[in-house]
């Protein structure tokens, strides 16, 4: 039995699980989401941003796709991973190494790029499934060590093998669209739209996964894997599945990054980057889909602000002191610690509070 008015949140109640699992609880939610999408797709026609800022926005969107994956494995399935940048690297180097072998101007790279991105996602997923295997037997710190090992093995392989140009930058050609080659002047705008479509489709994909029995089993295993086992779920396979999903999104994000940067270099996929993605997930909100958007945006913007502060400090402090070098890790560490202490549910929780306030207004509760 549903309320008569599907536009209002008030008075809604459900009589079936299917109703509770709806993506949009009310028509208002659906409308707001549609309007939000219209704004996201149309603002470039009204506001002119510098190339630098378009690049920052593109990088935020790539991080959003990567964090979808990390949040699935860490936030929803409760498994810790510090090798997420390496999964992204698998995706990026899938495109870059194919380009290295067949030529970076090959039609497969320049025209079939959506296929290459998908292929990179599948490579990431395959690697995720392999790296996730220890999750069948390991938990907590031991699993962390396994993912850390993967990160280090990835760096070593990329830095040593000729196929990956020993970590040196590998080029990826410019892509083609219906209007021909995407030139330098349209590059960042083109990828903004390509990334936006990927973010929206992936976001809806994640939301749908979470509605399925597989998605719900992720949360069940996170909350109590023995109880989940008793209820007929396979905790080990569920965790491996979570790593596979994480690898898929990371692989796609890596491929998109390779296309955006027109190549891949190993320094984009180091342990430091993995920790940054973990910070984005924590700050955004573990186990919150909206957190996957807030986290990357917050960390990337913080990065820009700290950069300005470090530059200013570097200019006035003696070079021997080099305090500016420490500002960045200090600020990231501080932000993570403060969020863990004061807002463990992340920025997504602020968004939830704001939404519920607006929904209930003028009433307080």
């Amino acid at each position, binding site marked *: 039995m549903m309320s008569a008015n599907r536009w209002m949140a008030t008075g809604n109640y459900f009589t079936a699980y299917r109703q509770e699992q709806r993506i949009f609880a009310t028509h208002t939610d659906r409308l707001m989401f549609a309007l939000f999408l219209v704004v996201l797709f149309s603002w470039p026609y009204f506001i002119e941003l*510098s*190339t*630098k800022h378009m*690049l*920052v926005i593109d*990088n935020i969107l790539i991080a959003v796709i990567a964090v979808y994956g990390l949040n699935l494995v860490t936030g929803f399935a409760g498994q810790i991973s510090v090798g997420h940048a390496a999964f992204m690297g698998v995706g990026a180097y899938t495109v870059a190494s194919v380009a290295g072998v067949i030529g970076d101007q090959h039609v497969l790279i320049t025209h079939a790029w959506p296929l290459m991105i998908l292929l990179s996602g599948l490579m990431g997923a395959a690697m995720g499934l392999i790296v996730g295997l220890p999750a069948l037997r390991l938990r907590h710190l031991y699993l962390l060590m396994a993912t850390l090992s993967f990160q280090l093995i990835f760096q070593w392989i990329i*830095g040593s093998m000729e196929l990956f140009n*020993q*970590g*040196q*930058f590998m*080029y990826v050609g410019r892509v083609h669209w219906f209007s021909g080659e995407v030139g*330098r002047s349209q590059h960042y705008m083109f990828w903004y739209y390509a990334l936006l479509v990927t973010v929206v489709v992936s976001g809806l994909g994640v939301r749908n996964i979470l509605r399925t029995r597989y998605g719900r089993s992720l949360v069940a295993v996170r909350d109590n894997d023995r109880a989940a086992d008793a209820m007929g779920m396979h905790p080990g396979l569920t965790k491996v599945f979570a790593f596979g999903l994480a690898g898929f999104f990371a692989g796609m994000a890596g491929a998109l990054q390779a296309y955006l*940067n*027109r*190549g891949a*270099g190993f*320094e*984009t996929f180091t342990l430091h980057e993995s920790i940054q993605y973990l910070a984005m997930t924590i700050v955004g909100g573990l186990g919150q889909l909206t957190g996957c958007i807030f986290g990357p945006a917050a960390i990337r913007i913080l990065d820009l602000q700290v*950069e300005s502060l*470090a*530059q200013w400090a*570097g200019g006035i402090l*003696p*070079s*021997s002191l*080099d305090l*500016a*070098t420490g*500002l*960045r890790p200090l600020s990231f560490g501080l932000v993570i610690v403060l969020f863990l202490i004061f807002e463990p549910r992340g920025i997504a929780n602020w968004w939830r509070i704001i939404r519920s306030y607006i929904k209930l207004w003028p009433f307080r509760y």
Partner: protein
Amino acid sequence: MKTKKISIWLVVAAAALMLAAPGSSMAGEVYKTALSLAITGPTSDAGNPYSKGAEDYFRYVNDMNLLGDDTIECTIRDDKYETAITKRNFEEFLDMGIVFYLNYSTGSTLALKRDFDEVKMPTLPASFHAGNIEGSDYIFLPIASYSAQNIGLAEYVVDHHEGGTPKVAMYVHPSAFGREPVKDIEKAIEAGLDIELVETVEHGQDLDVTAMIQRWRSKGVEYVISQTVQSPVATMLKGAGNLGQVAESFGEEGKMTFLGAHYTGGNDLIALAGDAAENFYWTTSYIVTSEPGAGAEAQLELAQRYGRDEKTSNSHNYANGIMVAQVTTEVIRRAKARGNEINKENLYQELLEMNGMNAFYPVTTVGPVTYSKDDHQGVDTLQLYVVRDGAFRAEGKPFISEYAEKIK
């Protein structure tokens, strides 16, 4: 009456405009350039003095009116040695309308190589990696490549070694920056350079090198050529010193003579390694302030003028930064002298014509800067220095690597 008042105001306004007009034309042009480098973070020990060298020289050009009323505005941004930030900085610089660009690391130079060519931006990186200029029209190395420096050191070993083929080990950074010169040394050996390359070690962050030194000893290594940065070299020298393996004179029998390319040496190495740095052989194309001369005096005066501390003033990376700023200024000056518009294309043409009688002689390098369509390495000449009593002293005359030319 009212009409008369308006006429007076119009005359006054016209006079003001006339007075203002020559003033504005005398203000001169502002030429925008930019530098992105690691002022903080990894390798900032080199990047920091480098940025100050470039900054000071551009200030000097403007303060002394070396370009007449025109000035150079060089925006310097810290990229923390991260390619992603360098890329962002470069895009910002393009929006600002720069006409000449100074870059820093090997990684970012390789990553942005195609961008430089696409936007036809003449670029001078601080990285002397030979791969930077392969397939690029617009990247120019300030001095001889790492490969040329390492081969030059190997040639010096061959020329001064007594008895048989010298046994050499290479100690390199685990990256393109470290590996590429090894490949070129191997090519030089194939071309006839008479050394035996016993082993190549890619160093990690180990603080103990005892096993490595002992292994080299057992393999009969006589010379170690380093292609990395100062701190691992300092660790190696200290370790070798503790084991009594550092030769006290070049090629001392039963011991090892240590040599290194540009980024392995300088005063920072002496500060890190202390006495263990004695008798370390180092090559670069820059002058050092421990050797008196016009270049050293000029460098110290510039540093003093802008209040730099002693460490920065005496850094070879300060000289490095000065040099790229000098080249930038020189191409602008030459383009101006020809009456050409100061833009990317004309400055690029000036670089291509900087050879023969048009070679440029900066006071802080040991040889002239020469570029052409086929030559994108600036100063080909190298100077060997050796640490004596805690300071780098020139050893012999400046030279040009013979095999580096042969394997091209």
